[in-house]
């Protein structure tokens, strides 16, 4: 049990208690079928990147099911890569100065995220025969002050987790999906609700420190960076490799057309709404998602 001197400790004690009480063995809890039928919905229809678009109108149900299959494998692949990145960042900070209070929770976070990465990777390899490659840049381009770096790390983790949770919550409840798909999404949603609660608190706290220390120009750069990060995160859901695997010709043109489709702009805004509202509320961003 962590002491209760800091405002964040009440929340940490609550979510650590929940982590302990709801702890499960992921290696025993799933009953993985040997295979999943290709012709089924692998992803909720409304979550697919073609949903509501002009392109969707031209596709057969069989083609849409193929897209749902590869798009689900791509979604879990993004999770695998996102979790790797966040694990590296949290492990860099556990039991280091500035994170004394949070370190007890970090142990639960690291353990749970490792298990999530395992079940997402298992799903991809078992039912897709691969994990889609991570295409993000592999070099550290921007170097910033340590306090700003920590703020951006936890803000990125929060944005990633909230987008993923939007999908998990819906797929966990969608009875048109196979039980194993529902279960993976549902379990992840339950754990992530604790991580998101923590993420919001630590972002709030880190930003209060950054705001007190840095001039308005630096805060404007953070605003700009996170607004672009929100847009880049949503765009990463649109994968030409998915459209190619589903057999669509000209996958890059398909991607560009989908991103520009008014129906997708409306839906993407819906996915990001609660995150943008929170980030605006604490005044870390002033606009919303800003395209490149």
């Amino acid at each position, binding site marked *: 049990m962590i002491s209760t001197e800091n405002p964040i400790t009440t929340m940490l004690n609550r979510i650590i208690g929940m982590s302990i009480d709801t702890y499960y063995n992921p290696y025993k809890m799933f009953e993985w079928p040997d295979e999943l039928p290709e012709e089924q919905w692998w992803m909720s229809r409304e979550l697919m990147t073609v949903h509501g678009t002009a392109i969707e109108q031209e596709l057969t149900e069989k083609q849409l099911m193929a897209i749902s299959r590869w798009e689900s494998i791509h979604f879990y692949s993004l999770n695998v890569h996102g979790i790797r990145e966040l694990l590296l960042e949290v492990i860099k900070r556990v039991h280091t100065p500035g994170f004394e209070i949070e370190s007890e929770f970090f142990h639960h976070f690291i353990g749970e995220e490792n298990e999530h990465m395992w079940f997402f990777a298992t799903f991809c390899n078992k039912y897709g025969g691969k994990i889609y490659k991570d295409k*993000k840049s*592999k070099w550290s*381009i921007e170097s910033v002050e340590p306090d700003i770096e920590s703020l951006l790390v936890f803000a990125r983790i929060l944005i990633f987790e909230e987008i993923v949770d939007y999908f998990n919550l819906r797929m966990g409840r969608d009875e048109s999906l196979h039980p194993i798909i529902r279960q993976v999404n549902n379990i992840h949603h339950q754990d992530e609700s604790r991580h998101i609660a923590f993420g919001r608190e630590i972002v709030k706290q880190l930003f209060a420190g950054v705001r007190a220390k840095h001039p308005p120009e630096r805060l404007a750069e953070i605003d700009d960076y996170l607004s*672009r990060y929100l847009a*880049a995160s949503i765009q*990463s859901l649109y994968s030409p490799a998915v459209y190619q695997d589903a057999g669509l010709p000209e996958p*890059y043109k398909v991607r560009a057309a989908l991103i520009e489709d008014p129906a997708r702009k409306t839906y993407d805004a819906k996915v990001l709404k609660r995150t943008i509202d929170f980030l605006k509320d604490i005044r870390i961003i002033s606009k919303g998602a800003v395209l490149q």
Partner: protein
Amino acid sequence: VSTDAGPAIDRLKGWLRERKPKLLSDGSALDDPDFDLIENRIVDSLIFLEFVFFLEELSGRQLDTGPEHMASFRTLRAIQRDIFNGSRP
């Protein structure tokens, strides 16, 4: 930006200018094939995925972005050599 006409490297220059008009305002930076796109913040971590997808569309193949391949994305000379002409994955 149209991807249907002109040499790939010119289409890439057009794509970069369209996205970073302020940083490329003097117009001549991209004439230097060794101009560092990363150091000069023309390509940053948030635009990188779109940049890779555009290069994939131009080159007609999927590209690896592992640490060992990063140098191939740094300058127009490296992009021409490794991605448009070359056989690097």
